[in-house]
């Protein structure tokens, strides 16, 4: 069953071609990663799906309905936690519910509790570490009623240990709540560890070079990192990325 479809999406800013013929078919409940170098226009792709921008050509469908240039259909988690400093943690995670007018305080508290943030519910974001802020930001995305989550390099700014922790945490939550996730990253291991499928993306303009299906069983544990097959896939993905790079510089 197809859930999110991008059909030949093209986008340019002035004369700069950013996205070229992006076509994606994503099934409900899938964990998809878009893997590519920084500055390859992946975030622009999210802004398009989120309806913030209008593509030059192409269409975007969600659940067989066209959502090209329509806002409010997806749930989004940006690179930075983007919590509002004047709201407590609880008020922050309930922000999206407020927009649609449906407040479920009990549910919010329960989820913060599960995320290990229960003692910070009434604290302001400045009292939290970067990792905790990102967790809250993810809970905020989960609490919106939307079925699809767009995560834009959510762990990019975290240190290696926190990042590994957060990946495992994210997987556990995802296995519980089964949302469709589109995940942007420039980290090969992260993409392999988390996703069902990976789309490798090139730079200038961004286009999809390769689709890789990740065969590892779920639930996944951190020891997967040292699995023989894992390293093989890592090598393979690396060579695709390098191909895209070489093409660009020659």
């Amino acid at each position, binding site marked *: 069953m197809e859930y999110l479809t991008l059909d030949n999406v093209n986008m340019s800013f002035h004369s700069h071609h950013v996205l070229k013929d992006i076509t994606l078919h994503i099934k409900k409940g899938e964990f998809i990663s878009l893997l590519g170098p920084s500055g390859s226009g992946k975030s622009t792709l999210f802004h398009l799906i989120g309806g*913030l921008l209008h593509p030059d050509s192409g269409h975007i469908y969600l659940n067989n309905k066209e959502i090209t240039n329509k806002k409010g259909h*997806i749930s989004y988690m940006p690179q930075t936690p983007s919590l*509002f*400093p004047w709201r407590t943690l609880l008020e922050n995670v309930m922000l999206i519910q407020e*927009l649609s007018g449906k407040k479920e305080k009990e549910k919010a508290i329960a989820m913060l509790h599960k995320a290990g943030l229960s003692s910070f519910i009434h604290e302001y974001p400045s009292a939290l570490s970067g990792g905790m802020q990102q967790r809250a930001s993810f809970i905020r995305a989960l609490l*919106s009623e939307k079925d699809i989550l767009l995560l834009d390099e959510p762990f990019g700014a975290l240190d290696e240990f926190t990042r590994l922790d957060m990946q495992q945490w994210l997987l556990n939550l995802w296995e519980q709540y089964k949302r469709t996730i589109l995940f942007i990253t420039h980290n090969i291991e992260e993409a392999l560890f988390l996703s069902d499928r990976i789309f490798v993306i090139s730079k200038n303009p961004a286009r999809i070079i390769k689709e890789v299906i990740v065969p590892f069983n779920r639930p996944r544990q951190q020891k997967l990192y040292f699995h023989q097959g894992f390293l093989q896939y890592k090598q393979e993905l690396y060579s695709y990325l390098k191909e895209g790079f070489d093409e660009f510089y020659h």
Partner: protein
Amino acid sequence: MVLLLLLIVWQYSVIYFKVEDWLLPSPMKIVEEAILSRETLKVHFLSTLFLSLYGFLLGTAVGLTIAILLHRVSFLKKTIYPLLILTQNIPVIVLAPLLIIWFGFGILPKLIIIKLVCFFPITISCIDGFTQTPTELKHYMKMSGANARQLFWKLEWPNSLPFLFSGLKISATYSVMGAVISEWLGAKSGIGVYMTLASSSFRTDRVFVAIFFIMMLSLLFFLVIQLVEHWFITKKGRR
């Protein structure tokens, strides 16, 4: 400390150089005078206090309304913003007699004068606050389906509060100045009136008393606003 030292130096140099009272009275003399005429001073002080308070409140209301209007309607921002700057280029002292000709000696022209000096810092700081909303937060709100109203009240407005408070602090000090100027031009009571009477009869000590009270009043306003700001922003985890 520095203030105290300054007062001591002042006191002793007045005695040492035998400066005439009408030229520069000593601090002791000024305090003496303040205590002697405290009954009349109280009337003048309260009158100026309320005048500047009303003017300040009116200026804040007008300043906020203009800021919100200009921000929400981009067409207005382009056309009216330059006009606003022009209003600040006219010296109040020139405008005041005109307003008295148009509106008489009542409270209305005085409020207009105070409002004119007050609203500008508030409008400018508020608009700055609105436009300096972080882009990523704005994108986030829009992608999550927030409409213009929600974007404003949930993001841009709270974001501009620290900016608004710096505007308010400037305006509060201005409002006292505006009140005194408006009283110079004709009023029954107020520190401005007390001051004109004192200076025309060479009661320099009383002029200093007036200056002292104006400073006190400005400081009082400033402190009150700082208190509110502290409660609003520091308590809300901003700093």
